[in-house]
């Protein structure tokens, strides 16, 4: 069983967490979209891009982990 510290060091633990939080925070920015589904989708896309960029920074600074 993975320890909690091991889990916290895994990018795939942080990526979904960042996505969910980012989507919730960014959704109001797209409130003018025709539907709530689209505003959530665009918020998810934005936060996904930011999280992906964060992941690439981790790869750049800790390449041996990958």
């Amino acid at each position, binding site marked *: 069983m993975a320890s909690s510290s091991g889990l916290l060091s895994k990018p*795939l633990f942080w990526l979904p967490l960042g996505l969910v939080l980012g989507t919730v925070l960014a959704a109001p920015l797209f409130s003018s979209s025709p539907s709530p589904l*689209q505003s959530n*989708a665009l918020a998810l*896309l934005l936060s996904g891009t930011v999280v992906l960029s964060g*992941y690439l920074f981790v790869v750049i600074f800790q390449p*041996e982990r990958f």
Partner: protein
Amino acid sequence: MTTLQPPIFPRMPRGRRDQRRYTERPRSDGLLGRAVVQSFVKLDPRLTARNPVMFVVWCGTLVTLAATLEPRLFELSPEAPGRGFNALLSLILLATLLFANFAEALAEGRGKAQADALRRTQASTQARRLLPDGSEALVDSSALRRGDQVRVSQGEMIPADGEVVDGVAAVDESAITGESAPVLKEAGSDGASSVTGGTRVVSDKLLIRITADPGKGFIDRMIALVEGAERSKTPNEIALTVLLAVLTQVFLIAVATLPPVAAYINSPTPVVVLVALLVALIPTTIGGLLSAIGIAGMDRVAQFNVIATSGRAVEACGDITTLVLDKTGTITLGNRLAEEFLPVGGHSERELATTAHAASWFDTTPEGKSIVRLAEKLDAVTALPMDTATGLEFSARTRLSGTDLADGNELRKGAVEAIKGFVRSRGGTVPADLDAAYERVSRLGGTPLAVCWNAEIFGVIHLKDIIKPGMRERFDQLRRMGIRSVMLTGDNAITAGVIAREAGVDDFIAEATPEDKIAVIQAEQRLGRLVAMTGDGTNDAPALAQANVGVAMNSGTQAAKEAANMVDLDSDPTKLIDIVTIGKQLLITRGALTTFSIANDVAKYFAILPALFGKAGLAPLNLMGLASPQSAILSAMVFNALIIPALVPLALKGVAFRPSTADQLLRRNLLVYGLGGLVVPFIGIKLIDLAVSALRLV
């Protein structure tokens, strides 16, 4: 006792070694099928996340899939592409991921086939462990620990790696080397005391001290390595990963900030097209092939029957600038043969031959036996009482060997300086004509061995050294590659100079002691050079550990094998030259495909940018005359996907290697893969566009 058939190595090279370079092993059954299955298994995001470029493609695929399910999901503009276009794009991106996974799975599968063969030698074996009271207990091989002693008799399998403590036996090592001829193993010999678990005693019996705990043996390490279980990224791979991640980051930011600019110039860009643009911009070709190139490099080394302890070691071979080589066995044939006797000090040839015969009586080396044979040929057989005499073994430190008679007489043969010292220490004098005989042999490139009886020197034996065929050409090749070769020999400076000149090595160290090896390596490293060397004895272990690439012979001691970062299963020291070539080829292949990958992005810009911003005045950039914006995007994406499997054979086989300098290699690389990477996509994308238009896919 377990009786197992030795595994058949599917890629075991056969025939003369110089004729089996880059031998492609036959494809294992089901390898392609397993690679296809693994391509889908590797879609798991936890695995894809290890490759930043392909992870971005994976995320892009999710976006296009979502847009396929609901085309209006991300779009505010009425001109958004339809479900059909999105579905096609999703399929192409998925194919890109699968092709990259397939390349990696194929490379891994080739290693696993060898691991399976090795694993068959690992069936549990019963062993006779020696107990402190001298009795034996039958135990499972998995219960053996380092330090235990076991007795193994004819027909039995050696249960674990160890050193022979007592006995002499023939051992069938075909399970690991593929060589069917049994090898002699005996205690106390540097080259023949180490035994490997899974091999079989075919005659007599041995008492073995176990040197590896279960799971830590030689075959266990080999399995872990060829399966890639211990594969960690090499420094060059890490550097390239960072470069690819930086490029990907730059393009991700560029693409993410594009929509506001596009909106400002009244060219709104759909999200799926932005995804296509991002995938076209990032270096997916090298991203998809990077790990396959590394795994294939290990595989190519294994095809030469060499086991590398890490990819780092294989890669280091490519950077080697100095080769430190033993003369005997590497540059010259191992067996020097006595050619003639040169008497000095007024002695006759017969007197010298008889003394040499007695001094070589206990010498079991090929050189010693050849002296005995030559003396017998001259009918100069010793009449001394050899049954009561004892032999003195040659040592690298004293550099002489010989026979001690029961009455106290000492017969010696060895390096001329060593014999001079021996004679002087016993109050004798050196004959005036000794140096002339010594120089005569040395100038012929032979090894002079002086012979003495107590304090009297009788003459010199000419041991003829034969340079291996093709060595000069190989050293010429190395020089063209910018690699300096240094020959180490115990011979005198004149002989060493003659051999060095004939063989074409760049430098030599004469009258070298084992300590000189490590000194030479350290001196080269201080000059910023990377050094490779081979060795087999325990006294080679420090130098093997010090060298950047240390290749131990499988016939060598456990200490040498543990200190080295490669083990040659064929125990052929000249293979070091081949290994360096493979390392260079690995680096060149990676460089060539990186150049091609970055160059072929240029054509994709010319396909996608006019498609995106045609209305904003970039239509003249449509140099290829692509049919429509959507067709241009699809064509670029299809090319992007297809180029990965097209380059898989090159990634696995390696770029053809021609010995040349770094500048020449760079020029050739830029010309073939840089220019090729620019031109090929233009042709490929245009042809795909014609096909897409003809099939009316968009």
